[in-house]
């Protein structure tokens, strides 16, 4: 397969996943911002949404400190000057898809193309809460359809594997960011850990990754920070956990290696990250510091991204 094709598929999947993550962040932020202050609601939520999305710096250049609901929504969802806005994610995904039409199934292409056409109906200026909710569920549905179309219709060959690797690298990055930002930015120093503020913020993390129900099924007790971290970092049952992402990455990279008859540094790196996750216990993670642990992970995950690129995509 052409390296450029593999590259396009890899990034196509990443951008579709990113759009989904942004929609979830906005969803949860809006929910939290509506809570009374005593339960964790504050305007601070919109600023934290920017941090979670990794766009705080860029936002500052455009809007300064004016992190109002309207500004943040329009920046994360529509702003052309934000390269990772939902609109840009869809635009880039479609441009990538057009260049690799031949490697996509008709169902995948139609999902992306019709989402792109549909996107034109939403404008940033005059969006009511209801319209925003509709928009966000449209984005999430698009990602689901794309993912489902890929899963159900693609040949199981390198095209499929590269797009899966892209999706899981992006997903791991998103999960790690969500965890990190919530833990360190949201909790004011004076707030008692385990208090109502803490409770709602940890719950919001679970909601943002559609894992609140799963949490109750898995732990059968009330929401506690270390359990949330355990679920999202180490629990292999949880499809967004770092462990689950790396099980998938390792598996698909191995499929590629078997197909091409050659293992390389990407496979080795993915395996060593997976091993490290497997050897971690959540108590130790908290003892050495959740932030440091996640930071290391994000760096490793990025390194995997560039290793995959060097080995296959250039």
């Amino acid at each position, binding site marked *: 397969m*052409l390296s450029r094709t593999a590259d396009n598929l890899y990034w196509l999947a990443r951008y579709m996943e990113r759009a989904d993550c942004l929609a979830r962040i906005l969803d949860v932020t809006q929910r939290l911002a509506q809570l009374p202050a005593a339960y964790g609601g504050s305007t601070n939520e919109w600023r934290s949404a920017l941090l979670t999305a990794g766009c705080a710096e860029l936002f500052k250049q455009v809007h300064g400190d004016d992190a109002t609901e309207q500004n943040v929504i329009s920046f994360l969802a529509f702003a052309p000057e934000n390269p990772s806005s939902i609109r840009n994610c869809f635009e880039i995904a479609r441009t990538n898809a057009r260049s690799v039409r031949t490697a996509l199934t008709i169902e995948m292409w139609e999902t992306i193309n019709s989402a792109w056409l549909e996107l034109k109906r939403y404008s940033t200026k005059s969006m009511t809460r209801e319209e925003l909710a509709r928009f966000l569920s449209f984005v999430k549905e698009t990602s689901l359809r794309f993912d489902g179309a890929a899963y159900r219709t693609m040949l199981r060959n390198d095209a499929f594997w590269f797009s899966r690797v892209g999706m899981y690298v992006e997903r791991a990055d998103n999960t790690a960011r969500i965890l990190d930002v919530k833990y360190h930015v949201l909790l004011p120093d004076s707030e008692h850990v385990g208090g109502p503020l803490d409770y709602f913020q940890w719950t919001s993390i679970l909601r943002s990754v559609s894992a609140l129900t799963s949490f109750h099924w898995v732990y059968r007790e009330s929401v506690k920070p270390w359990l949330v971290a355990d679920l999202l970092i180490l629990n292999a049952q949880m499809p967004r956990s770092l462990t689950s992402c790396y099980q998938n990455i390792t598996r698909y990279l191995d499929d590629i290696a078997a197909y091409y008859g050659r293992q390389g540094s990407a496979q080795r790196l993915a395996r060593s990250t997976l091993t490290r996750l497997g050897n971690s216990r959540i108590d130790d993670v908290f003892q050495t510091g959740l932030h440091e642990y996640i930071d290391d992970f994000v760096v490793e995950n990025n390194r995997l991204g560039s290793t995959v690129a060097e080995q296959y995509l250039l």
Partner: protein
Amino acid sequence: MSVAFDEMTNADGSIRAAYTTLARWLKDVPPDVLDYRRKEAEFIFRRIGITFAVYGDSDAQERLIPFDIIPRILTNGEWGRLSKGLEQRTKALNLYIKDVYSKRDILRAGIVPEDLVYQNPVFRPEMNGQKVPHDLYVHIAGIDVVRVDSETFYVLEDNARTPSGVSYMLENREIMMRLFPELFAENRVAPVENYTDELLATLKSLAPTTATSDPVVVVLTPGIFNSAYYEHSFLADKLGVELVEGRDLFVRNDVVYMRTTEGPRRVDVIYRRLDDDFLDPLAFRPDSSLGVPGLMSAYNAGNVTLTNAVGTGVADDKAVYSYMPEIIRFYLGEEPLLKNVPTWRCREADHLSYVLDHLNELVVKEVHGSGGYGMLIGPRADKAQIELFRAKLKQDPTNFIAQPTLALSTCPTFVEEGIAPRHVDLRPFVLTGSDRTRIVPGGLTRVALQEGSLVVNSSQGGGTKDTWVLEES
């Protein structure tokens, strides 16, 4: 202008044989059903993204070519005569180009004037004395023909460089079969869907002798911003070959490779949809970032086949066109089976003075023009336009030819007011391999949707139709 020949209805109101079942069907089908199917067709086209871009129009980055749901029908007999003529013509084009880049017998015989070759901006001196695989140059030709009565087809233009439109021929048929299965049950329509198989067989037959028995074929595109990008990706998909851009290829020791996830892979045949100028920045335009540095040296070394060959433009401009009947006689010793439209070459003094005296009756075209741009349709033009062309002609007569306005045939077409006759042309595609010539029965019918208009180009509001060749039932 005289009344045009209508392909469905004779002057006395009777229906021509090929259209019997269609005419009956059109009479019975309620207009809102037609309208509904038309919208459905448009929806499908839009959703699968069959679009083209119009240069210089930022609002029209991706536009749909209007599709007319009423098919255009030819009988088996009509097609048989037409395809023999197309094969003859393509054969002559190939022999002419080979001659131009080698012995130049035709110039020495005084049949084609020398300056038409040497002064031609698309003449490629790099190709002089250069051997190309299997001595073939035009592997994929699109020959535009028009019809003026029940017997006569004229060739309007030869496209010997990178003719496009074949994806519409295939998609139009696909859509028609989806929307109107009942029509296909009643008519025995020759299939066209094997075009891509025929194309692949043709491309493989053209591989250089250094290739393995299963040569690697690719389609080379300028990229997603090209107006015909959809077609490039469509063809690569149907051929089952890689769609590459220049940056996906590189040349080492005069061999072309593509960059793949498994390392470099040798390429034997490049179906390029990129103009000569952009192919290789080392040989042609140095500012081209679309091409592949060193491609021409690999080509000259005989390690790769380019389809079509470099330099085929010398055979398809409108000035050379006027010599095609002589070219056919010279190389094949046969009479041309398809007529040429009578053409005045403004480069010749007596022709020029005739043209200047009859501007209001003639169509004047630029020798290197295409897409219906830069032409004058005398009978439709106002005084100012005529005077503008008079000045242009006087200033640079060699740049123009003139032809009588032909009464192009019309076909029933579904427009705002209902079903009405509109002018059509036809572009069949001729494939020339080292083994044989292949032509699938049909082609792309283009239709001028404006009443009375003769301009069928998609960049100027033309539409397309499915083209049927009926088998003997």
